[in-house]
């Protein structure tokens, strides 16, 4: 199993990932049998993709629906997602300006640094928005 494995060493090693596309899914659907594995700077690890999933919702977070929109909290996503367990979505696109990093985190013990993916547009195999455990840069 591969996960993003670029560890940022040193307090100044802050990198902004400015453009990301995610074709999300569990380990089974992202296996070599159903799609080529990405070839980025990966590290091998034992993360069980389907069990862990992409959602890292923090303990004690809430979910509520206001005016037809469900408000969620996530440990690593901010934005909007539509979901439909019937498998509705065939395409998605978005446009944004690459943001500028205005503050660099200063820590000295790995894993260090700050990282951000400016966006991911995704068609996911998950039934709900699942913040990705992905794309360390």
């Amino acid at each position, binding site marked *: 199993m*591969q*996960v993003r494995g670029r560890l*940022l060493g040193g307090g100044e090693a802050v*990198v*902004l990932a*400015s*453009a*990301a596309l*995610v*074709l*999300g*899914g569990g380990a089974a659907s*992202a296996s070599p049998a159903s799609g080529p*594995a990405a*070839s980025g*700077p990966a*590290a091998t*690890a*034992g*993360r069980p*993709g389907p069990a862990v999933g992409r959602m890292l919702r*923090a*303990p004690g977070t809430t979910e509520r629906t206001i005016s037809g929109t*469900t408000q969620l*909290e996530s*440990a690593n996503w*901010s*934005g*909007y*997602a*539509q979901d439909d*367990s019937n*498998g*509705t*979505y*065939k*395409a*998605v696109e978005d*446009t*944004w*300006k*690459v*943001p*500028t*990093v205005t503050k660099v985190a200063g820590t000295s013990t790995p894993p260090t640094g700050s990282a951000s993916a*400016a*966006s*991911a*547009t*995704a*068609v*996911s*195999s*998950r*039934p*709900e928005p*699942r913040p990705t*455990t*992905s794309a*360390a840069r």
Partner: protein
Amino acid sequence: VSYDAWTEILPAAEAVIPGLAIHPGNTIKTTVKETSAGVWKMTVQDVTTGKSGGRTVHYSSSGASAEAIHERPCIADGCTSTSDLAALAKTNNVTFDPGELSNAAAGAPAWRALLKVVPGGTLNEIAMTNNAGTAVIAAPSKADSDADGFTVAYGSKSPAAPKS
């Protein structure tokens, strides 16, 4: 600080798009679409420079969600807890606009506003919290007036929605 563009298929690692230099302030357009049954094309276009890249893959997707998000990545092998996440880099606000999705047949997209719920779907507004889940660290705005855009701000305060 460096900037990259990439595509990825979770849970595999990302694939950086070679030769597509990214700079702050550039306008980026990303597209993920099923071009025929089981064939997905992922594209990152730098509208400012006119350059683009991406890849086409065979992939079996449930098509169960579509999203546009600002994220902080996992930087530790395993990614089993929030402590594996990077600290969120502080940036200026990011406005996603316009965003669209399609639920039409593969290869013949019929684009509609990303934040306008398709029949049977649910719209989720997602705020990013710190590792303990005790504070919001990146907050989205409400949708703009034509339901195809929003802004994400660093911190706990939701920014104003963009003008449509």
